[in-house]
């Protein structure tokens, strides 16, 4: 029995939107991958592989089709023979181990011919309105060789190596929403299965994982012939798909303030609902305890060599012990159990541990929180239109509400504006540079909302309170984008990062992790302060195993029997 009583409000944006906390977020029930696998299982999607035409060198193509209730979607995959010296995860790479597109429907032979001339070229090719995504992947060289060699020699690969790497291939970009000629999101966003954010991209990665499993088996057989072992499905399940992500993802959460708000707000609302429960049943408490134990196992496989993440993992491990201690000493059924737990965590744990718990307490309460997934898309185009009738004093107040901390900062001090975001002409790669050491300031992108807000606030101080902001903007077009963001903040309290995105000490990986955690990524492994590898779908059922009882909690491994 659960009952709501004292309402615990959503956490304050000033607490949630700090970069260090955003850089400590974990996946949860609302994550985009889990939304997709739940839906496909509930709706009884079926999957076929109409084409698998790959030679003994691993070159060829394959088609995997997912059949939903009203629409079908096909991953068209191209496998290549990539010389090792060309294997780069950077966006400036020009060749990959495999390239993909998600086709809207079932492609004809003619479609596949067209795609074969374009998809392998990625950014240098064109796709069409029939395609929903464009992506590529590179092998994890070590694990790929290990799995091929093991199977070819007639035995199973070593599970520990699989746990530690987590994937056979990692995607190095998954483009959607009209990029390189693909269909705009508007074409498909009214379909129930594609309304939530990034569902086409998540489906493409899900099918990519199946293709990679089939490809590694195929390559093992090409090498081992009749003696080749069949990859044990229980082992295959721990093969996810990696992703290697650089700075390109960081501007996204600044450039889509309403969308980002909707993700954060949905999760905060879910946390608030669970914290507001006065009691929980023994079953609910036990579900939480089980999932916590399973998540500990997943955390034990999380590896990173990056000093910052090493330190965070060490804190997280201490946090896991502290949580275990708390759980042996406290009930989870009485006296606002979840609120008590969260309040305890704020005193006792690092941000990694706090955000892990905040995600985990949602698990027993799917009925209460899963509906929030319907609020995570951005359907509010109106919010982009500035209300010019607002007064100067009202706008000043909006800026103060969000950026009070930034108004007193000396934005001319070098450490406060040491960095500048810019786009390099080289494949239009987003980069972060040193403002005082490189000639990049003239090319700066508007990715420092706090600095811009402080500048607008200073300019507004010269204007009378009751003047309409339209007049101010006519005289000061350079502040127009900041006024727009300030007004968006009225309906989107979690739209702004409450930290300096151009300071000497900014860690772009915090922005990457915030976004990737909502995808449902795990095992964040920074390779630098601006580059991170992750794992997706490790533990998930493959299409032929996808049933309702396996569609959701796959992200938490069950201890081997």
């Amino acid at each position, binding site marked *: 029995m659960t009952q709501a009583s004292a309402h615990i409000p959503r956490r304050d944006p000033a607490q949630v939107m700090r970069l260090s906390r955003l850089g400590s977020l974990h996946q949860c029930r609302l994550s985009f991958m889990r939304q997709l696998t739940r839906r496909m299982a509930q709706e009884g999607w079926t999957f076929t592989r109409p084409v698998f035409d790959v030679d003994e060198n691993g070159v060829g193509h394959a088609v995997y089709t997912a059949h939903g209730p009203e629409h079908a979607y096909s991953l068209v995959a191209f496998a290549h023979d990539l010389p090792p010296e060309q294997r780069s995860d950077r966006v400036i790479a020009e060749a990959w181990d495999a390239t993909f597109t998600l086709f809207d429907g079932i492609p004809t032979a003619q479609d596949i011919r067209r795609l074969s001339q374009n998809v392998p070229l990625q950014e240098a090719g064109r796709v069409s309105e029939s395609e929903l995504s464009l992506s590529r992947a590179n092998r994890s060289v070590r694990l790929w060789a290990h799995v091929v060699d093991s199977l070819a020699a007639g035995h199973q690969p070593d599970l520990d190596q699989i746990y530690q790497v987590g994937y056979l291939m990692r995607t190095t970009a998954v483009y959607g929403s009209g990029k390189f000629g693909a269909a705009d999101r508007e074409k498909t966003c009214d379909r129930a299965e594609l309304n939530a954010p990034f569902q086409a991209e998540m489906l493409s990665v899900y099918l990519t994982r199946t293709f990679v499993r089939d490809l590694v088996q195929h390559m093992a057989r090409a090498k081992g012939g009749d003696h080749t072992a069949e990859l044990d499905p229980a082992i295959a399940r721990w093969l996810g798909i990696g992703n290697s992500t650089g700075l390109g993802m960081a501007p996204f959460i600044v450039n889509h303030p309403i969308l980002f708000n909707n993700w954060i707000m949905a999760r905060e609302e879910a946390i608030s609902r669970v914290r507001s429960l006065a009691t929980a049943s023994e079953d609910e408490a036990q579900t939480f305890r089980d999932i916590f134990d399973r998540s500990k196992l997943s955390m034990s496989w999380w590896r990173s060599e990056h000093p910052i993440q090493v330190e965070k993992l060490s804190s997280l491990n201490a946090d896991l012990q502290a949580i275990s201690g708390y759980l042996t000493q406290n009930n989870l059924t009485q006296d606002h159990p979840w609120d008590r737990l969260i309040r305890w965590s704020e005193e006792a744990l690092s941000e990694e541990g706090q955000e892990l718990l905040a995600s985990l307490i949602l698990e027993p309460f799917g009925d209460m929180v899963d509906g929030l997934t319907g609020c995570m898309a951005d359907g509010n185009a109106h919010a982009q239109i500035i209300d010019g009738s607002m007064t100067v004093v009202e706008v000043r107040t909006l800026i103060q509400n969000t950026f009070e901390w930034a108004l007193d900062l000396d934005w001319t001090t070098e450490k406060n504006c040491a960095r500048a975001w810019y786009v390099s002409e080289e494949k239009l790669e987003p980069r972060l540079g040193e403002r005082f050491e490189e*000639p990049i300031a003239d090319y700066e992108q508007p990715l420092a909302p706090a600095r811009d807000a402080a500048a607008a606030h200073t300019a507004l101080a010269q204007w009378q309170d009751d003047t309409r902001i339209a007049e101010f903007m006519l005289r000061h077009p350079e502040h127009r984008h900041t006024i727009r963001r300030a007004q968006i903040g009225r309906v989107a309290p979690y739209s702004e990062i409450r930290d300096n995105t151009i300071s000497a000490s900014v860690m772009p990986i915090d922005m990457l992790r915030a976004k990737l955690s909502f995808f449902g990524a795990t095992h964040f492994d920074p390779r630098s302060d601006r580059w991170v590898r992750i794992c997706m779908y490790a533990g998930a059922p493959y299409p032929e195993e996808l049933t309702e009882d396996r569609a959701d909690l796959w992200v938490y491994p069950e201890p081997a029997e």
Partner: protein
Amino acid sequence: MNFSLNEVEATAKRAARGAGYSWGHAEEAAKATRWLCAQGLDGTGALERLLNQNLTASPESHAPNTNECIWAGQKALCPLMAGAALSDCALQLNEAAISLKDVAVPTLLLPFAANAARLLKACATIEYDGTVAITDGYSLTLATAVPDHAQLVSIGLGGTLAETTSPRSRAIPDPLVWAALNQFAHRTYAPATEESRLRGAGSGLSDND
């Protein structure tokens, strides 16, 4: 070649910025160009004609004085600056029509009138010298082409949609126009250097592992 509307929007934003508009106006240019293309009009061509006029060399002389009955500038009005001001002042349309004098590439005012129509949940009628356009913010009725330059434009509430332009999900810009927009956009890209290639984005570690 056809392009997604997302590509149109992204290119228009960079092009307007490259031509010297503020980020806020570049955002307006991007949405406006996309809206025109979605209505089946040549939005990219309109933007390119505007950017070629180089009004950002003296922006204040092309901005409207909105305190007068008829909005005018010292020189021809920039439709992005005037359009943004029109959208900002949408509520004023509840009281009276707004007139603008001497407007460059006035097609680009349409998306801003559409903003106002959506906000006010009403039709807006835009009169260009002799040509009349009507929009409810989502669809557009336009009998004859909008002139390249208008002496007087008035925007008021009222009118009813008749036969509307056919909405499009793709844009087919003139290749020369598209190339020109990309030239403007190119001004926003920092030249690649070996240093920025190493420092600016990557991990510095091998990916061949």
